[in-house]
């Protein structure tokens, strides 16, 4: 039987187990949308912006571990989705994005809504394809899903010209793929693993430095076994939160620029860093030349280019985190001699002293403005029994969530790490909610970031995705304001947002529920009320505008040299800064 390209597309996606597509139509992909419309196996979720579709596919992929799928049109549809592709590339999220393209005969003619989709997306995808012949379509789709979800996962783009979706051919979906230039290494070298085990047994001050790779490879169990067996403290990157229980006694929480004091001190003074599925990002290493000056470094990663990219590594192990850790545990289990707990006691005494010296903290005055940390802390305590999925945008609220929301299971954390994409959180939360209709999905957003994709409120309402969004309203691009406070003498260039819009009304305008929590003693009830509503909710939480996020390692600083609180003169400067902003605002309003 002869099928059209559009029908082949749908049949192929069914074979890949795709249940949901996030997309937005246009002229050159209408045929595909038309075929999707006439079947029931794959649900099509119409987003209100292609960036939203891309982030929803990411949220879906991060929460489920299966590739997320987006379908968008040529030209502006493609350029709109680029941010999500770049985000997925940085954070190794498996998504497959299908773009429409002008008919093959018109490619290169500057046709209406033509863009060089393959050229535009090349630097921000793991791989991309232009399908020139309908006979190649099924094979290409098979390869796209294979590349996106194997090795170090990542986004793949498949560009389908209009005529390819219309032309007909016989359909046969390939059973397997072989790509001669693509053979990820899964098994780690036994010899290297043995060396690593020896180093661990000898080490007095080891630390596990864990990244998102542990989540992609499903290695949480193995990680926990390793940490517990050898009494090794665990530092997590922003991307790894949930890979190891945040409330486990061996967890030191997040490390890096806004990591905990204990996490950063411990890695700095360790004698052995065991990096697992992490990439020594500059937000983690700080000043590279002074990173872990006393430590030997073991680096386990599936991507050889991550190893020795910016840090010298003593024992590199290329392989899948899960398999390598399993093997490492086997070696350790059979060879560990002596009591590791006893051996590490002085190290743990030191770590516990650091923990006690500067724990994460904030002060919530009973009658003052709500502290952002308090809101997040309460939200954590009131929801933790439900194992919620937590999404964030980018900024201070993201860092506070990372610090205070102690996630306990993998695939519950949706945040934009490498690219730091404001506007990521809400659509990502919707993507996860679409995958898990019955789970609690929270989004903690900034009043700046949420405005970058708030149009997806329409998607949330129409698709009945009851995500609970808590907007930390500080009327600032808070993280920018913090840098201006600390490094630009309090000059608030373009960081003051004024009090726009009214998020309660915004939610209501879309048919969602809008709530506002005004005072500290309303916090618990407000959260409970939001959770009790089975519809999308925006909760606007006006907070202390000037709260800053600590600890902080200034960019390029050293991991053991953290700022722990506001410098003394700051409050005064902030008041002056705010006044001048507000006067500026008055001018605008009276002009």
């Amino acid at each position, binding site marked *: 039987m002869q099928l059209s390209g559009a029908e082949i597309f749908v049949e192929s996606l069914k074979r890949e187990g795709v249940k949901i597509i996030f997309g937005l139509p246009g002229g050159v992909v209408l045929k595909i949308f038309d075929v999707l419309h006439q079947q029931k196996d794959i649900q099509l979720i119409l987003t209100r912006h292609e960036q939203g579709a891309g982030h929803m596919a990411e949220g879906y992929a991060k929460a489920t571990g299966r590739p997320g799928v987006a379908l968008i049109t040529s030209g502006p549809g493609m350029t709109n989705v680029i941010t999500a592709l770049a985000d997925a590339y940085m954070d190794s999220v498996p998504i497959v994005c299908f773009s429409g393209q002008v008919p093959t005969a018109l490619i290169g003619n500057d046709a209406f809504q033509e863009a060089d989709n393959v050229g535009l997306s*090349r630097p921000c995808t*793991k791989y991309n394809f232009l399908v020139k012949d309908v006979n190649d379509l099924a094979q290409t789709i098979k390869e796209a899903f294979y590349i996106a979800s194997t*090795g170090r996962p990542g986004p793949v783009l498949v560009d389908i010209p209009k005529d390819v979706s219309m032309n007909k051919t016989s359909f046969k979906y390939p059973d397997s793929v072989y790509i001669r*230039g693509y053979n990820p290494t899964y098994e780690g070298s036994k010899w290297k693993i043995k060396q690593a085990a020896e180093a661990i047994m000898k080490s007095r001050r080891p630390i596990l430095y864990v990244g998102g790779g542990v989540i992609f490879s499903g290695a949480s169990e193995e990680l926990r076994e390793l940490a517990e067996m050898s009494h090794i403290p665990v530092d997590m990157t922003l991307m790894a939160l949930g890979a190891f229980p945040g409330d486990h006694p061996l967890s030191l929480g997040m490390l890096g620029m806004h990591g905990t004091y204990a996490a950063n001190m411990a890695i700095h003074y360790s004698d052995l860093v065991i990096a697992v599925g992490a990439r020594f990002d500059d937000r983690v290493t700080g000043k590279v030349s002074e990173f872990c000056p006393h430590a030997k470094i073991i680096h386990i990663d599936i991507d*050889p*280019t991550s190893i*020795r990219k910016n840090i010298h590594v003593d024992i590199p192990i*290329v392989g899948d985190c899960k398999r390598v850790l399993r093997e490492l545990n086997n070696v350790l289990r059979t060879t560990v001699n002596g009591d590791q707990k006893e051996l590490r006691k002085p190290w743990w005494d030191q770590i516990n002293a650091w923990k006690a010296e500067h724990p994460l903290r904030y002060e919530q005055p009973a009658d003052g403005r709500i502290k952002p940390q308090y809101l997040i802390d309460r939200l954590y305590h009131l929801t933790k029994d439900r194992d919620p999925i937590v999404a964030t945008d980018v900024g201070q609220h993201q860092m506070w969530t990372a610090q205070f929301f102690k996630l306990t299971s993998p695939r519950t954390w949706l945040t934009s790490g490498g690219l730091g994409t404001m506007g990521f959180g809400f659509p990502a939360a919707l993507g996860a909610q679409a995958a898990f209709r019955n789970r609690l999905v929270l989004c903690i957003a900034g009043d700046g970031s949420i405005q970058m994709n708030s149009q997806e409120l329409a998607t949330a309402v129409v698709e009945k995705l009851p995500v609970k969004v808590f907007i930390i309203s500080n009327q600032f691009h808070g993280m920018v304001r913090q840098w201006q406070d600390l490094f630009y003498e309090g000059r608030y260039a373009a960081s003051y947002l004024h009090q726009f819009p009214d998020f309660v009304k915004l939610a209501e305008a879309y048919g969602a529920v809008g709530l506002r929590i005004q005072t500290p003693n309303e916090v618990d009830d407000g959260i409970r009320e939001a959770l009790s509503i089975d519809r999308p909710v925006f909760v606007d939480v006006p907070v202390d505008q000037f709260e800053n996020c600590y600890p902080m390692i200034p960019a390029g600083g050293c991991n053991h040299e953290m700022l722990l609180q506001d410098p003394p003169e700051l409050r005064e400067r902030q008041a002056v800064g705010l006044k001048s902003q507000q006067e500026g605002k008055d001018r605008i309003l009276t002009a």
Partner: protein
Amino acid sequence: MEHIISVTLENKSGALSRVAGLFSGRGFNIESLSVAPTLDPSMSMMTLVTSGDDRIIEQILKQLNKVIDVIKVVDLNESDFVERETALIKVHTKPEDRAEALRIADIFRANVVDSSPTSYTIEVTGDVKKVEAIIQLLQPLGIKELVRTGRIAIAREPVRAASSHARPVAKAT
């Protein structure tokens, strides 16, 4: 340090730009690049000349391997290799310089592949030093146009069984 890297890649549209994009995107140097199909027409062979310290070269090799259209990467500096480059040099010749131009071509065993009353086009093949030397000598006569192929290189076969081979870098991810 300068490295010559030979890269076997898929002979399909886009493959070359993936490699070129990798170099520009990551700020690696390309001093020269030449590419053409191999005996197997589904593959191309690229010779890349680049430079950097050991850490950068290690990254370049790994990043090249990571490109899905790249099938094999060999750092030729790890063994002995033979390299060649061809240049076509169009020299302006005043009547009194014509004999000199021919003499220079002769010394370098270069061929005159085209001539007009006022010019010779000289083809020279050799290693970079040789090509650069002839260019230098012809310059005073007046070079009108110059085209170079970029360097190509191939590993030498070992003379004795035990001598070292160029090692392919492990291909992964």
